[in-house]
């Protein structure tokens, strides 16, 4: 029998992590995501699955604990919110540079600086354009429901280990704090060391006599070697772009206008579409589920059909740049969104659609 629970997005992340057989969680409290570690600590998974849960002294420490665990081929994760994720950027570039798989959850709040604890989507640039130094990418998933918060934990680990790359779950205060029905997976076992050694032979589990030592590092002092390594990384990213684009389309078949929105904003926009369609406006929505890789091709396809696109995000206009790049100026692309912790209402989105695209 399927078990339905009513829970917050943050709680769903924690429950899903335990059930996915995750080996370790390392975190530091910050609103609006503290329920992730609070739920884990209340559940005491170290007594059941053997999962390690540790409150670190800072986000810097947590992300580096994740590095240490990932280097052993363990499935490890952390979560935080914007200011904490800024502090993790050093760790993320090292993880990407050392090609380590891990999952990081960002329950985004308004910035810049200490900002506000209210929801925002203004960490898009930080997440998909780098954040840390160097040419690297984070595979980025944007859940739009509590169910997706749960489902994306395991999906993220699958992608992380498939590509040996960190994966970011880019959520926000709305999805983290809201409660919805969730169906959780059955408990899966944690990986054994034999399984890790067999499938992830790079893991530092102790040098066996039959293999060379394993070294997890991101340093290549020789420029030519570093360039060669960067080519390898780029080839990996091309493969991610070819194989891992995920998106959802809503009422696009007859759409004359297209809203592009992700995460909680996509939920709000679904209501806007109901309101707009009731007024006779033929509008659809493309919801990127992966923000990196971005659904560039599908947007170009829709650009041939619609009169204009509206990127709706709780930021001053970040994803809109990628939408513009995707459609190569073939249709007008506008941005709308409240930001700094304010959340746009479905009605405000309809007004913006009318003013910026239809009226204009």
């Amino acid at each position, binding site marked *: 029998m399927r078990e339905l629970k009513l829970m917050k997005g943050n709680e769903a992340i924690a429950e899903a992590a335990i059930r996915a057989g995750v080996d370790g969680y390392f975190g530091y409290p910050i609103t609006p995501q503290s329920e992730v570690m609070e739920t884990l600590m209340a559940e005491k998974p170290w007594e059941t699955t053997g999962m*390690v849960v*540790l409150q670190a*002294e800072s986000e810097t*420490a947590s992300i580096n604990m994740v590095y*240490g665990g990932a280097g052993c081929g363990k499935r490890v994760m952390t979560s935080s919110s914007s200011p904490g994720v800024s502090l993790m950027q050093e*760790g993320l570039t090292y993880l990407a540079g050392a090609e380590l798989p891990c999952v990081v959850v960002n329950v985004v709040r308004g910035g810049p600086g200490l900002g506000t604890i209210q929801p925002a989507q203004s960490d898009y640039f930080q997440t998909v354009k780098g954040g840390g130094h160097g040419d690297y990418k984070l595979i980025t998933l944007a859940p739009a429901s509590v169910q997706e918060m749960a489902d994306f934990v395991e999906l993220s680990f699958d992608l992380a280990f498939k590509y040996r790359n960190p994966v970011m779950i880019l959520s926000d205060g709305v999805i983290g704090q809201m409660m919805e029905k969730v169906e959780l997976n059955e408990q899966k076992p944690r990986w054994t060391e034999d399984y890790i050694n067999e499938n992830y032979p790079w893991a530092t589990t102790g*040098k066996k006599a039959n293999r060379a*030592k394993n070294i997890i*590092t991101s340093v290549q002092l020789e420029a030519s070697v570093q360039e060669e390594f960067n080519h390898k990384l780029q080839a990996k990213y091309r493969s991610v772009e070819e194989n891992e684009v995920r998106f959802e389309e809503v009422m696009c078949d007859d759409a004359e206008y297209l809203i592009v929105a992700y995460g909680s904003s996509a939920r709000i926009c679904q209501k806007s579409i109901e309101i707009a369609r009731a007024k006779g406006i033929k509008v659809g929505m493309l919801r990127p589920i992966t923000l990196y890789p971005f659904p560039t091709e599908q947007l170009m396809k829709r650009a041939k059909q619609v009169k204009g696109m509206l990127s709706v995000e709780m930021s001053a206009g970040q994803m809109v740049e990628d939408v513009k790049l995707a459609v190569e100026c073939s249709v007008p692309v506008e941005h709308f969104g409240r930001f700094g912790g304010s959340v746009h209402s479905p009605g405000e989105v309809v007004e913006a659609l009318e003013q910026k695209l239809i009226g204009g």
Partner: protein
Amino acid sequence: MSDINTIIKPENLIYKRTDVLSDNDLSYCPGCGHGTVHKLIAEVIEEMGIQDTTIGIAPVGCSVLAYNYLEIDWQQAAHGRAPALATAVKRLMPEKNVFSYQGDGDLAAIGTAETIHACNRGENIVMIFINNGIYGMTGGQMAPTTLPGMAASTCPHGRDVSHDGEPIKISEILAQLPGTCYVTRQSVHTAANVRKSKKALRKAFENQQANKGTSLVEIVSNCNSGWKMTPIKSNEWMEENMFPYYPLGDIKNQ
């Protein structure tokens, strides 16, 4: 007739270089203590039979490439973060032997928080701390442990304690924490000191196997390049100047 082959026989072997050391040429300056400490760690690992269960965490600094020299699995950490990595490795694989290898800038400046909190949690790891009072790799800048009046490229007129504070005695601080079981300060500049250092390292790894908490082995070392001295002169200078500030011996032994 003394044919060399009549001498090279197993029964005549009195010393053998450990196989835990790799054949790579060391990248350290001639006269530097790092190579000696590497060898001691390698010997302890071999003698304890833990080569296949030991994971080393390399820092940023001169020993960033330490993983080239010891034939064990390694992770290389971001600057100062080695204790955080070691924490996770040990917690996720409690049956393994885990050590960090860190310099003074790594352990006592940029990584102070990670160092103190790993020790405070009593992480069951070994921390090996090379204190030479200077940033060697980046070209001789002031370290948190640079002595008062000692010149470095970012304090060319000597460390002014009214401006930069006193050098930090991090081992004494860490010894205050209940999580540490063993804090010792050694050196490797004489044969006798090398033997003492090796004993300390062995004890630290044995503490880990006995689940006793964090063991910290500080090695006060020279940096003849950074100090701009000959190796012999730098060892003399170390005895005269470093040891009075950083006295050798056990700070805590439980």
